[in-house]
């Protein structure tokens, strides 16, 4: 959440001060990039997605409400950019070229390759919720804000994504 001490920076950013906006967005760039990487599994694509998201956020920052949380707001924009990227037709051309290859016959390697392949095939909305919860370690309340749904619905989406990823993969505790 933007604290009172940041109120002046926030106002300057809303007024169009690029340096102020950069200061506000800097702490969320890292999780945004990690989210884009897990969603797209490609550094250049992730950079493009975060860049587009950052410029869109900058463009519409005038409408950012004081008191809102920056991280879920920005991650929702990044997630949308990643979804757009994966909808592109070129994405499918590239996916074929870098399909994971099976290496040694050891079972753990094979299992890992299977999991990687399953993640690659996972529809973006399932991958998004797993990335937010398991990779960025976001609390379910914040996951819900990124997804724009209730906490209960966010919990359900985590379970559903796990079920699609690998039937039988169970959570130890409730998210």
């Amino acid at each position: 959440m933007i604290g009172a001490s940041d109120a002046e920076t926030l106002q300057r950013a809303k007024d169009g001060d690029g340096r102020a906006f950069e200061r506000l967005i800097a702490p969320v760039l890292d999780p945004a990039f990690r989210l884009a990487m897990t969603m797209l599994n490609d550094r250049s694509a992730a950079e493009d997605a975060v860049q587009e998201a950052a410029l869109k956020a900058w463009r519409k920052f005038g409408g950012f409400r004081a008191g809102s949380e920056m991280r879920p707001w920005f991650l929702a924009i990044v997630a949308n950019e990643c979804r757009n990227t994966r909808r592109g037709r070129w994405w499918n051309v590239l996916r074929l070229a870098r399909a994971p290859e099976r290496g040694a016959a050891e079972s753990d390697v094979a299992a890992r390759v299977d999991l990687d392949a399953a993640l690659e095939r996972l529809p973006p909305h399932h991958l998004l919720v797993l990335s937010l919860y398991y990779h960025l370690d976001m609390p379910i309340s914040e996951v819900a804000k990124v997804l724009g749904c209730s906490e209960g619905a966010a919990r359900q989406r985590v379970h559903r994504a796990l079920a699609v990823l690998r039937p039988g993969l169970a959570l130890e505790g409730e998210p």
Partner: protein
Amino acid sequence: MNPEERELRKALDARSGTPSPEFRSRLGRAFAAGRPPASWMPAVAAVAVFAVCAATIGVLVHARYVATPPRNAASGARLVTPGPTPTGLIPMPNVAWLDAPGGPVWVVVAYDHLYRSTDHGTTWDRRQLPPNTVVAPMVSAPFSFIDDMRGWVLAAGSPETQCNAQSSMVWRTLDGGAGWTALQTTGIAGAQCKDGITFVDETTGFVTAWDDNSPPTVYRTSDGGQSWTATALPNPPDFKPAQGGFELRAGWIRQFGDTLYLEASGHQEGESTDRAYVFKSLDRGASWSWMEKIPSPYVAMVTESRWLLLIAPGQSQETTNSGQQWHPYASDFNTDTPVGGPQVVFSDSLVGYAEGRAALQRTVDGGLHWERIQTPGTANSG
């Protein structure tokens, strides 16, 4: 946390990474350059739709109460866009759109900067897009020129969920982008996302539309863009359309002689890549018939019989019999685009242009060798 959850975390970590200092620095420079312009397209499209409806009602009322036939209300007023303001370099462009209708080459950089070159991309002059127009990111062919003066822009609003609907309007210029006229179009439905506009001469043009749950639509005009008629694409024998993202999507349209060619592709359940096809029309686009299956939607037609699929050295392919057989092609073409795909267009059998991540390339030997050329408005000098 159970072992499987740990495995999942490890697998997600393995896909992850951190942004490079160069990337952070580039972003910082972009923010320092000032806030990018907001897109007014949805509002402009809504106003245009309202204006067209009002004009239509007005004409009908007029026709009913006055015994004289309504004048052919063709278009809105011609608007002259204010000249370019010196704003320096475009910050961090990562996308551009190309069109090369014979001699000149046109490019839109970073959604809202239009340029024209009449010397094969060596030098560029800034032209203007229609007022308050920003190219919609998901539109694959937002503009079409037939020479160095006459062109059309397809301006699209925000798409609804699953591309159920998207407003659009068509602009036309006759003076190389100095002034634009909003055409009062009829026949283009609000349904579906609009994907591209292509004109093959001053009267015949096409707008393609798609969504995940219904067949694609190819709108055709034969009066320069005012009235449009929807045409359908037949399904190729091995393509089974289904709702939920398994429908065809029309792509590029090219003309050679009296024959028109159209690319369309779509996803089939359980397959990792799209199936792509070329369709053919012998009646100026009034009807289309399936012609050939192609290895990728990103095939570029160099001539009527010679087509290229340019990906990267060692991966490119060529056909010299209109897609019946493909063989490896030793082109040095390469692209660093991870998204959007490279656009490749040929203005004749030798000269062609490609775009990937806003970097432009040119070939003058039919696609064998490529050289980087300047992306106008940017520091990228090739």
